[in-house]
């Protein structure tokens, strides 16, 4: 058995805290963009997810994702209730840190992923239905896909798909589930007729800043050690975010003026796109990955608007399309010079890697979209997915929580 490394363990504990912080940061990122009457409701959709999924993960989620593989499709129940997950390392996943540290770190990813989806259904979702959805989604979408991509024996991992920190597991699943949810749920009242104005863009900037910081734990921690690979991931992460923020600034400038909401959106999109690639590509490649992510998501928003679809905070355009680009870009720019344990991409003479990445992307898209569609249709039929028209007009802060953000 490998020995515990104190430096690695310290870094993963810090990275765990950084990734945990990203979900409340996301709460503010989203909260700033809704109307004042739904500010608390929107913040709470993210915050309560920390509670729900922490429990789900300890009880069943971790073992479904990382338990002994059953046919490459799902983890077995050998880690049910974190049984046997202790101070001793698990050589399969992280040989130099306690197994329990690995499972705690992974828990924070499982938490933020369904929280990302909440941007699709703000300002109209019925809270009770959301609670049930989140538990079902974590169990039937996140845990299986995490197993396929990251679990030993998982079908996509066995195929050689690369996903350093969750471009496929986190961003593609969240983005395309958001799309399905928005289609089933329908648009907000007055959507497309009156401006549904952001109530507090500084909250969104604050959230984006904290997400950017937290992402150093998200991507840097995915090296699962305090080493050169973690540093590479941190540098590519920062560089891609910077490139996307600057490019988005120019895109919005062309339309009108350099929008602050646009600039911080760009930063987040750059962070999304570099996520699967952070530990496989060079800093120069990360400029292209971030720089191109901005127009991809920018025009995806325009397309979504053309469809007249109220996917309210553009989770699909930013996370779904940003994640898809990042996963494909990993198949282009990956190099063993950065990470000998990875693979070479198309630009390093291995076109096969791009094909593998594309297959993994398509599988994740189809599965996440399909299962979310079924879950939301069922909830819509048996529980009611949205509040009444009157409750929606009053705002969810009052109608769902009996509180208001400001006196």
């Amino acid at each position, binding site marked *: 058995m490998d020995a515990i490394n104190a430096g690695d363990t310290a870094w993963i504990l810090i990275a765990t805290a950084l990734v945990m912080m990203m979900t409340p940061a996301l709460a503010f990122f989203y909260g700033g963009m809704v109307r004042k009457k739904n500010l608390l409701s929107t913040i709470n959709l993210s915050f309560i997810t920390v509670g729900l999924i922490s429990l789900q993960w300890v009880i069943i989620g971790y073992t479904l994702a990382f338990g002994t593989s059953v046919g490459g499709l799902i983890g077995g129940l050998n880690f049910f209730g974190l049984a046997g997950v202790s101070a001793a390392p698990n050589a399969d996943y992280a040989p130099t840190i306690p197994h329990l540290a690995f499972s705690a770190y992974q828990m924070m990813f499982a938490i933020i992923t369904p929280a990302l989806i909440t941007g699709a259904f703000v300002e109209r979702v019925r809270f009770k239905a959301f609670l049930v959805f989140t538990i079902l989604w974590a169990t039937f979408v996140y845990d299986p896909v995490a197993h396929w991509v990251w679990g030993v024996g998982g079908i996509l991992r066995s195929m050689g798909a690369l996903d350093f920190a969750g471009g496929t597991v986190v961003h593609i699943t969240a983005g395309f589930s958001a799309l399905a949810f928005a289609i089933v749920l329908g648009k907000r009242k007055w959507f497309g007729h*009156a*401006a549904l*104005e952001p109530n507090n863009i500084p909250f969104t900037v604050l959230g984006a800043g904290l997400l950017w910081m937290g992402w150093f734990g998200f991507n840097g921690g995915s090296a699962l050690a305090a080493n050169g690979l973690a540093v590479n991931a941190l540098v590519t992460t920062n560089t891609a975010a910077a490139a996307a923020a600057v490019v988005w600034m120019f*895109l*919005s400038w062309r*339309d*009108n*003026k*350099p*929008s602050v*909401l*646009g600039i911080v*959106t760009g930063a987040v999109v750059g962070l999304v796109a570099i996520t699967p690639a952070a530990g496989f590509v060079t800093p120069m490649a990360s400029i292209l990955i971030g720089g191109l992510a901005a127009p991809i998501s*920018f025009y995806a*928003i*325009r397309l979504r*608007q053309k469809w007249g679809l109220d996917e309210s905070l*553009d989770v699909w355009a930013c996370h779904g399309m940003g994640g898809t680009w990042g996963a494909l870009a990993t198949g282009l720019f990956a190099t063993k010079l950065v990470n000998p344990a990875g693979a070479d991409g198309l630009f390093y003479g291995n076109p096969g890697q791009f094909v593998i990445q594309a297959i993994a992307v398509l599988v994740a898209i189809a599965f996440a979209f399909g299962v979310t569609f079924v879950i939301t249709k069922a909830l819509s039929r048996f529980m009611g997915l949205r509040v009444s028209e009157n409750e929606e007009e009053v705002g969810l802060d009052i109608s769902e929580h009996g509180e208001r953000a400001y006196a």
Partner: protein
Amino acid sequence: MTKKIEAIFREEKLIAVKEALSNIGIVGMNVMEVRGHGRQGGIELAGRIGTYKVDLLPRVQLNIILSDHNVEKTIETIQQAAQTGNIGDGIIFVYPVEEVIRIRNGERGHDALTYAGDIDTRQEVFLQAAD
């Protein structure tokens, strides 16, 4: 006779208007933040991508109660100070006022409106100086 002037104009002109009114001796006023639109209809603001239209724009509403003979000069002062020449500059309404009562001492009518140094007492000073 007593009148109420209700002037709705651009927020950024509030300091200039207050300054100009204070120069002619208008002392009492209250100010409200309002939202609305007239013929201008609204403006485009920058969004995540592109722009979106906002049709209720922030303006300030200044309320002043004063004697009939001071109305024209006050209107003129507000109009000059609040003007940019662009659409959306705002509007001024004038209404008759039935009665004015100062809460502190129950003074009514013109007495309740007069302060030391206001537009009326100042005119007396000017008149004395002219003598």
